[in-house]
């Protein structure tokens, strides 16, 4: 039904009040048509936007590459790739895609170990490099799960930062073809009594709860840790898990020449422009205040509609390829889908439904507006896609098409125009895959020897009853050990009716199949203090803890996801911690025989020269053939418990 003015365009791609035009999809490449909103504003750009033509004509024009975070040699490489200077839009796209956050330029050389050391595995249907790893758990069912960080945005605007963190990870899960079924939230804050913690924590918790509750996703676990090292850099990691029939697995490839590129979901606004490259790739300093406007605001209701409409489209076989729009917006989705398929793509930016009509093409490409997905659709399925979108009340607009390569055997080009101005003409692989890769210098932190020498054995031990009592009271009063109900009761754990175990259990357990009782267990753990003392062992310990938490429920651990939260990679000591942690996690996974299926790296968690403790957060997924046999952590209540025996395993 079309109760929403917004949806009026879903069917016909024709906004209200604009004379009927043919659906954007049939407009053909020659005639950019569709949204008139931006047309009138061309004159506002002195002579129009920076075009490829203009870039060729003005090769020496100075460009602000350094302000956009691109190093001189990176800028030179862009000129080399293009054979000219980039246009303003292209420059923005390279700056986004070659940022640390998107390109993994500092971490790539280390993360390779996850693949190289991965044990033989037949369950993994999709692994590192996909939106999220997918693990087969029965003949016909698979699950996908991943943990991601939203640290910097959550420090700037705790509620929206945390909320959109949940929204983002849920879209990753959705993009794999899965129905998202739960979330978890590993959190780190500064000292519990610090005034800024009082600003950040309630907002973060309300944001995670608000978004997850509105989506109808049970929260089945997480962590809350207080430590002064996180004072200026709280960590907000969010994990989501989804389930899919094996045959519904989706791809991101923009395959099939002539297929239509459809933008689905919320309208595009000026949210978070420059957010990813600026927020996630730079340390906080006094300038942070000025960056504040780049926060995104989430609309969980729209995301709920997006989920339902996408699932309906998958089930009807309407989608060839799909990619969520995350931090890097259209730039990332367009380049990654095209690069993955090796095809070209032709995109008409003036068709993108806008919230603010005055947006420039560069802004449209860089916008981080939430709740959007990019679909690749066969032309004969387009109508059905638009109809499904309309039913759920979300915008769906054909914004381009998949094009062949001009040179057989070579990948195609991504050509983007805006009202007859060609603003982008690039090889998509150069943005998505061929970003810079650095083997950054590593150096063991100078203070590590001292830290390690300061052993726990040297601490005074309580020896009198009074001392023991005092120690015990101090421990139970510690914010890190005390009951977390004041946080977890702000989350819905019951929705969907399949939560078998949740807080305060060691792991969350979900039922996937009501008939067979097939289910999964999930735990997410990390310990920054251990990792600070020894990042190699600390990462292994995080893995072991999550593994144990899953195993004690009765589940068989089968896969790992991780979020690696560190300081600045440009600091050799931080880089050493990172390298050690990755090595530890990869070795640990090899020893336990389970693969890392995906994850996320968050660098620059650092205020001035002070980095956070290295904080690898590890999620482990386990499978239970029958959730009725799960083992809860509490003793049973009498009378059932009468005569139960207690055993201690291990030493």
């Amino acid at each position, binding site marked *: 039904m079309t109760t929403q003015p917004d949806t009026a365009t879903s069917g016909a791609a024709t906004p209200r009040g604009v004379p009927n035009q043919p659906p954007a999809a049939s407009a053909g490449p020659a005639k950019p048509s569709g949204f008139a909103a931006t047309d009138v504003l061309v004159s506002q750009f002195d002579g129009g936007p920076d075009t490829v033509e203009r870039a060729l004509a003005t090769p020496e024009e100075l460009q602000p590459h350094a302000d956009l975070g691109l190093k001189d040699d990176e800028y030179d490489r862009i000129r080399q790739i293009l054979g000219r200077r980039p246009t303003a839009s292209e420059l923005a796209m390279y700056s986004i895609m070659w940022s640390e956050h998107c390109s993994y330029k500092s971490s790539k050389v280390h993360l390779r170990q996850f693949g190289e050391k991965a044990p033989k595995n037949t369950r993994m249907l999709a692994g590192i490099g996909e939106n999220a790893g997918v693990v087969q758990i029965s003949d016909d069912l698979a699950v996908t799960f991943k943990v991601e960080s939203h640290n910097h945005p959550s420090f700037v605007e705790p509620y929206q930062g945390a909320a959109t963190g949940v929204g983002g990870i849920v879209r990753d899960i959705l993009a794999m073809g899965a129905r998202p079924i739960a979330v978890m939230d590993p959190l780190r804050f500064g000292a519990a009594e610090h005034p800024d913690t009082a600003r950040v924590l309630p907002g973060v918790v309300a944001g995670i709860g608000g978004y997850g509750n509105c989506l109808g996703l049970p929260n089945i676990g997480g962590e809350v840790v207080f430590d002064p090292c996180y004072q200026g850099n709280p960590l907000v990691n969010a994990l989501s898990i989804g389930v899919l029939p094996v045959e519904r697995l989706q791809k991101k490839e923009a395959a099939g020449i002539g297929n239509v590129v459809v933008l689905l979901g919320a309208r595009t606004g000026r949210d978070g422009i420059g957010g990813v490259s600026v927020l996630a790739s730079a340390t906080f300093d006094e300038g942070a205040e000025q960056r504040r406007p780049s926060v995104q605001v989430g609309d969980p209701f729209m995301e709920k509609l997006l989920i339902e409409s996408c699932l309906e489209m998958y089930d009807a076989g309407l989608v060839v390829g799909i990619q969520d729009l995350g931090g890097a917006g259209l730039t990332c989705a367009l380049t990654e889908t095209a690069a993955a398929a090796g095809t070209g793509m032709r995109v008409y930016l003036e068709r993108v439904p806008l919230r603010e009509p005055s947006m420039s093409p560069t802004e449209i490409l860089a916008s981080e507006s939430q709740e959007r997905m990019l679909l690749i659709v066969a032309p004969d399925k387009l109508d059905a896609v638009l109809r499904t979108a309309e039913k759920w009340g979300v915008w769906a607009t054909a914004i381009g098409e998949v094009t062949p390569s001009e040179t057989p055997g070579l990948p195609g080009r991504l050509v983007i125009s805006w009202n007859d101005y060609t603003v982008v003409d690039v090889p998509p692989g150069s943005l998505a895959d061929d970003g810079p890769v650095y083997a950054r210098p590593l150096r063991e932190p100078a203070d590590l020897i001292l830290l390690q020498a300061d052993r726990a054995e040297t601490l005074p031990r309580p020896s009198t009853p009074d001392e023991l009592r005092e120690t015990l009271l101090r421990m139970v009063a510690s914010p890190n050990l005390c009951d977390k109900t004041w946080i977890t009761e702000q989350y819905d754990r019951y*929705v969907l009716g399949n*939560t078998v175990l949740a807080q305060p259990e060691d792991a969350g357990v979900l*039922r996937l199949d009501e008939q067979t009782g097939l289910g999964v267990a999930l735990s997410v753990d990390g310990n920054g203090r251990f990792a600070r003392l020894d990042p190699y062992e600390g990462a292994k310990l995080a893995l072991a803890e999550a593994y144990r938490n899953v195993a004690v429920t009765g589940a068989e651990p089968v896969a790992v996801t991780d979020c690696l939260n560190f300081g600045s990679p440009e600091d050799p000591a931080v880089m050493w911690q990172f390298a050690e942690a990755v090595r530890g996690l990869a070795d640990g996974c090899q020893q336990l025989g389970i693969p890392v299926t995906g994850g996320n790296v968050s660098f620059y968690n650092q205020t001035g020269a002070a980095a956070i403790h290295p904080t690898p957060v590890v999620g482990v997924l386990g499978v239970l053939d029958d959730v009725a046999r799960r083992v809860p952590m509490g003793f049973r*209540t009498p009378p*059932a418990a009468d005569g139960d025996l207690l055993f201690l395993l291990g030493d």
Partner: protein
Amino acid sequence: MRIGVVTFPGSLDDGDAARAARIAGAEVVRLWHGDPELHGVDGVILPGGFSYGDALRCGAIARFAPVMETIADAARGGLPVLGICNGFQILCEAHLLPGALTRNQHLHFRNRDQWLRVEATGTAWTNAYAPGQEILIPVKNGEGCFAADQRTLDELEAEGRVVARYLRGNPNGSQRDIAAITNAAGNVVGIMPHPEHAVEALTGPSLDGLGFFTSVLRHLAGAGQEAALVGAQVQGGPAASVVGGQGAQVAGGHLAGEHGAQLAGGQGAQR
């Protein structure tokens, strides 16, 4: 018996409500907010969630959904309607029930296992409970604080239309600890906590919620005699033993202690 479960955009507990009705023995029919047709259902559940994102006020927009106009008419004609959480909010916004659900007094969303006392057992949705029966079911809301003027509250009390009250702690500041109310005819019930999340030992704190769904089936089976249900909290002598099907042996057999969730394992093991 055909029980309809409405899905609005933003409904979240619709699947759970459908499952609960199914477990109770109903044939479940999914209803769509944009379709005014009720497809011959004998009763309707408005499930929890955030219909239309709960912009403005919870339930304010859902009230105008095409399906709601039909339901409102049918409810006035005696169709059993149960509004759970967001459904309760919608029923109040649609003026099928008095009062309003306002922001929790502590300003937080709160999810916990909550004890209730069932006070009106003559309604279409609570006749399987014994008067005064204490039940444990999850509550989870951000705007669940029932508010009405004194006259309305007094009227509700006097007419025996307070269906359930919070026990051992009021989770949201509701006036007079009200957790659920009914209309004068007893066919429309709104409840803030979630009985549909307490129908399976494996996933809920108890099986205490099942009675709502078995009640309506019993009510429909005896249709015709239910005309005078109002003030029927004194009725219900046989109710305790009729929680129906698998619920029967567990009615009132909820788990001891405040922390039902973590103890549910014990119950599961016995099953």
